[in-house]
């Protein structure tokens, strides 16, 4: 069984601990992840900005890297959403890669999707005695339809008190290159999201996408707030370790 990790470029370069948490959680179920290092980026920054040639080059590294995998897991609903929702359009004029893309789509899962829907595991045996609020990322929930999976994993964490985030479904304003091209609007959105997080008085903000968490976390840190920002996999891994 070849189960592979698509670590995503952001987690690879900035948040390697997220990829590590996914690999260590999988190992607990006897799944020894592989890491085909031909992977670079799913191509979304270029795709969303309209540079489809550049996006295709990047996307091909992903398609080729996972050609032999039976399952691909990524700690990002956005990158998986890119594969699922946009690769068909990206390769509409390239029948060879279109077919390869379709086979990648079939086997690629966002982290919480893989645990809940593929493995059928909702209780990882974690303990995390903290107040936590959850930001559902737009691409995970709207492009990929991942809505209940992260919540069902969180609801089985012992000691965790989940506080609902007001206007949780509102975008945090990251939007990849959007935050670079229109930083003022992006910041206004991030500031509002951060305010909602603070309203919950949670100790921890958890999510399934490091892009959004980098944005909200960057705002919270700028404001000198002590909210801890974690990927769901990190939280669960810390939670299973504390129980040992």
């Amino acid at each position: 069984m070849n189960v592979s990790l698509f670590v995503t470029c952001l987690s690879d370069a900035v948040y390697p601990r997220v990829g590590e948490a996914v690999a260590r959680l999988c190992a607990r179920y006897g799944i020894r992840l592989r890491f085909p290092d031909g992977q670079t980026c799913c191509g979304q920054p270029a795709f969303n900005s309209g540079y489809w040639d550049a996006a295709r080059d990047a996307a091909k590294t992903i398609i080729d890297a996972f050609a032999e995998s039976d399952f691909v897991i990524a700690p990002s609903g956005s990158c998986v959403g890119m594969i699922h929702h946009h690769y068909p359009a990206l390769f509409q004029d390239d029948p060879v890669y279109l077919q390869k893309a379709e086979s990648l789509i079939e086997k690629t899962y966002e982290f919480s999707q893989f645990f809940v829907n593929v493995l059928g595991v909702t209780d990882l045996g974690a303990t995390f005695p903290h107040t936590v609020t959850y930001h559902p990322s737009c691409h995970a929930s709207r492009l990929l339809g991942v809505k209940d999976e992260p919540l069902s994993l969180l609801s089985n964490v012992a000691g965790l008190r989940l506080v609902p985030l007001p206007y949780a479904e509102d975008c945090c304003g990251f939007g990849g290159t959007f935050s670079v091209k229109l930083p003022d609007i992006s910041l206004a959105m991030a500031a509002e999201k951060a305010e909602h997080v603070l309203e919950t008085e949670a100790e921890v903000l958890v999510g399934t996408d490091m892009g959004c968490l980098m944005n909200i976390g960057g705002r919270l840190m700028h404001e000198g707030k002590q909210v801890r920002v974690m990927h769901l996999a990190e939280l669960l891994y810390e939670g299973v370790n504390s129980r040992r």
Partner: protein
Amino acid sequence: MSGHHTADTLEQRAKIALRDQFLRNAVKFTTKKLRTGKQTAADELGNWEAWRERGRQIRLHTIAHLDYYLSQFVANLRAAGGYVHFAADAREAVDITLRIARAKQAKSVVKSKSMVSEELHINQALEANGIEAVETDLGEYIIQLAGETPSHIIIPAIHKNKSQVAQLFSQVAGTDLPAETAILAGFARTKLREKFLAADIGMTGCNFAIAESGSIVLFSNEGNGRMVSTVPKTQITFMGMERIIPSWEDLEVMATLLPRSATGQKLTVYMSAITGPRRSGDGDGPEELHVIIIDNGRSRQLGDPEFQEVLNCIRCGACLNACPVYRHVGGHAYGWVYSGPIGAVLTPLLNEDRTKWGEVANASSLCGACYEACPVKIPLHDMLVYIRRRNVESGLTAPAERLGMKVFRLAASSRHAFRRTIKLGRIGQAALLRNGVIRAKWGPFKGWNAGRVLPGLAGQSFRERWSALEQELRDDSTEMSDEIRKRLQDQLEQRRKR
């Protein structure tokens, strides 16, 4: 504030809006009310997804056969005694309108709400010809007095608060009016009543045009649409060429979707159906009815697989209320007639000057809330990306952006390039990094770090860490349970069968 007209770029217009705390509070307050109302109305109705799908199918079908339904509509409208005019663009529509107005020796015109007429700048054209044009929708009246354009498809004066309205009305009244809704609305009612009674021409928009009977259907909440279409002797109706639906049965679906999506209302307060001019025995209605069917860039979308569906829009404004970008900057930042996600798509598509308008498609984080809110399921978030691609293909993007994308393309092209880029990045950030983050506020960090902190690249990337981690995991590994193995194998089996 009417400074929005002078700013040339989306970014400049957005900056102006973001500095205007009155505007931001007003827009935030009203969009919150509207989207909560919509949610409640949809929940109360039940089966909302099925209604949306039905609405979508009606619109898809109509637009796919637009030539057929348009000619059916025109034939039926003519048979009912109406005059039909076709305008290829805004200029032609203005010319036709002025011709009719001159023939009627019109001195004054009253107008009910019409977004398509905003594309024509018809009020200015009338004024330039010595004809007074008065907006009679309360919101439109407010922004006409302010010399502005609508900042929302449904709520044109969404960016104004009560005291700003009181100021505007006080100037007209020549006396200080208090900022009380009842008094302000009462003033507008009295003032507009004079205008209705004196007007030579009534001008309306068109929410839906029913092909099977040649009827115009107007939705309104203030009753001004009914005044405009019954009191003056001549009526001119502006209609975007895609406003058609085949039948009255289809109207039922639209009348279910539109008010709920727009304002959370179960029903619009007034629904007027107009079939031809006044007939003998009719108590009211215009003696002459002219319908101007306007193309103005719409037919260019027909047959385009990526954009044809934008013609399905029923102008409810739900995508505006759902859009986080709109909620922060309001409508004027979009620069043209339509705002929010639908505006970010329509503006570059309907305007031929893409050098000026193409960038409006950037006004979205692509969060997909617009698609989720749309009662006819237009994939606006995808269309925005297609327009951006077209901008790139036409060389309309900034040199710095093109350079950035070249670097991205190179970096993401292979494992070696990717590794090298991360290494270079680490060298580059060394002087800036403090406690793992970058707080510099210049150059490439200016925008992000103006109110955020940027994390630095990790000391060791995941790919650099992998071989050690893999070793640790191997030493530490558990046997796979039969249950997990079975689940994985079952999944593979299912996939093979598909």
